[in-house]
């Protein structure tokens, strides 16, 4: 029985790390621009494929490959903002249009990945094969790396938002765009950097995802949707909530997978979402209108 609990906890940690990285990027975009980025799963997919290509084809060590993918993803984030968000954000129904445009881009990226990397399963090599023994229990090193990456980046993002000039600019634009412009902040530039940062977080999520499971061109959407559930569950207002939500949903998913079977865990997660929506919608909509 304790074996079962340990294996559930380990996969909950990995899933929670993945979801917290995905959801914090989504949350950043959502709170700053008020739009949902359906192409976030596509960013994750591209990040994973870049890391895979750099390590498998170019022969770089995995960590270096990850480092090399980060600036690429940041550029893609800025590009995404330019083509899929900038043209629509000020139109009537802009949020709907951004959703459709990012969905279209996600679809196009899926096709492109299919063409470039083929439909085969790809997996990024683990950084380390070392295991940590705690009594009877062995914990694989990559689990700890995932957890460390998620905690460092999400808490780092919180600190950035709180302490740096960039963070203040982001929060200023989020709270009052016009006032922010009056004090000399350029919202367009803030939006671009927000997308770049979110894309880098998606790249880190890709690292966690690609080292723990196989990737195919169709696999970007699943973590995206669960990350959205996390966002709702934890409340989109604070990144602490996102962290708590991510690991709770990770635990729920790992538990249902273990006890009910793989195909039931998304059903359980989405049913929980619907229940939250019915019981506590005000927590979700509070402070924001669209």
């Amino acid at each position, binding site marked *: 029985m304790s074996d079962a609990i340990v294996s559930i906890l380990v996969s909950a940690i990995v899933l929670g790390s993945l979801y917290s990285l995905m959801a914090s990027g989504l949350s950043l975009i959502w709170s700053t621009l008020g739009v*949902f980025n359906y192409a976030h799963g596509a960013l994750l997919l591209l990040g994973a494929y870049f890391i895979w290509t750099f390590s498998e084809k170019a022969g770089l060590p995995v960590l270096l490959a990850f480092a090399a993918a980060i600036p690429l993803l940041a550029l893609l984030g800025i590009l995404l903002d330019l083509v899929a968000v900038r043209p629509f954000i000020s139109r009537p129904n802009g*949020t709907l249009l951004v959703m459709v*445009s990012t969905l279209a*881009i996600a679809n*196009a990226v899926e*096709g492109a990945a*299919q063409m470039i990397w083929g439909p085969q399963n790809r997996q990024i090599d683990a950084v380390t094969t070392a295991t940590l023994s705690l009594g009877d229990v062995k914990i694989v090193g990559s689990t700890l790396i995932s957890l460390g990456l998620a905690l460092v980046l999400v808490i780092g993002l919180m600190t950035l938002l709180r302490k740096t000039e960039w963070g203040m600019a982001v929060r200023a634009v989020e709270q009052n765009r016009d006032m922010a412009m009056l004090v000399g902040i350029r919202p367009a530039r803030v939006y671009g950097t927000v997308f770049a940062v979110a894309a880098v977080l998606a790249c880190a999520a890709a690292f966690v995802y690609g080292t723990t499971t196989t990737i195919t061109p169709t696999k970007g959407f699943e973590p995206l*949707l669960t990350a959205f559930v996390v966002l709702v569950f934890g409340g989109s207002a604070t990144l602490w909530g996102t962290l708590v939500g991510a690991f709770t949903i990770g635990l729920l998913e790992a538990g249902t997978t273990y006890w009910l079977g793989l195909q039931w865990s998304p059903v359980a997660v989405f049913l929980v979402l619907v229940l939250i*929506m019915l019981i506590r919608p005000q927590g979700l*909509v509070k402070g924001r209108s669209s």
Partner: protein
Amino acid sequence: MNRLGSLKRLGTWPLLAVAAALLPYVVVSGSARLLAVTALIYALLAASWNLTLGIGGIFNFAHVGFFGVGGYAMAVSTVTWHFNPWLGLLLGSVAGGLAGALAYLPVIRMRGIYIALITFVFVQLCYYLVLAIPGITGGSSGLTGVPALTLGDFSFAKYSGLGYLWLLGGAVVLLLLLLKATLRSPFGKSLIALRDNEHLAVSRGMNRVRQHLLAFILSGAIAGVTGALYVAYFRVADVTLFSFGFVTLGLSMIFLGGTSHIWGPVLGALIVTVIDRQLTDLGPMRAIIIGVGTLLVLIFLPNGISGLLEDVWNRARRLLPKKQSRLGDKMNSPELKEASHVR
């Protein structure tokens, strides 16, 4: 010009009905009929989707789910329970309507982007539920061997789907008539009022939840029948009914055609289906072209083709010297005014 005017007074609806009746004589070859049937099914899907998305202004992404639920209702009732396929169609519409009601429940108190996300999740939930209960739905391999629709001894699948062409052509005309009637009815007007100025509409005594619930049920029921027809034609139901590709394809049809006219999505569906057919041999390239094409349409054609045509038509008319007929013509097309995004 005069003859054109008298034709217009006759109305476009009988013309459309005649066109639907003559369709099988124009579209003769098997592959062309397959394309035409597919286009008509998509037309039904896109036009009924527009009832909530464009006319209602609700960010509903669950429509593909209603379509899939209707399709599965057809497949399960005919393959597993051996029901008559016509009863399957009826069950498809009931199931689609129920799915519409169910999808609306969690979003009653939501606005905009949240509705889009939750309704999107609804489609995913359908997808995973189908996989989770393979005993009923056939799981990932789907349900095959759905019987074709028959009328006496005549099978609709005969002569490369002659019966389906008539049935679907008639259904599209009927749906356009139904949508037109809806737009003119107090119900349709209340939907538009709620879309354009919710606070005012509610303060004048409109019940937002009830009207939107009705819109979901109505458009869900139509999507359910459409899904059932799709399954009855292709004789198979599988999880691709709930796939992302379907959602993107449907949205690209609506936005290419334009949401401001009831015939916009139909036009968009016909165009996208034909383009999509040309792209099937390209494999993954198809997804790229559809995706990028959708993006370009969104950027450069904000009102879709129907908006563009209306624009061109209005400009062309302004060039004509006949000033007095303009007013008369405008009064003759109330749906034009009703459906436009006047704020």
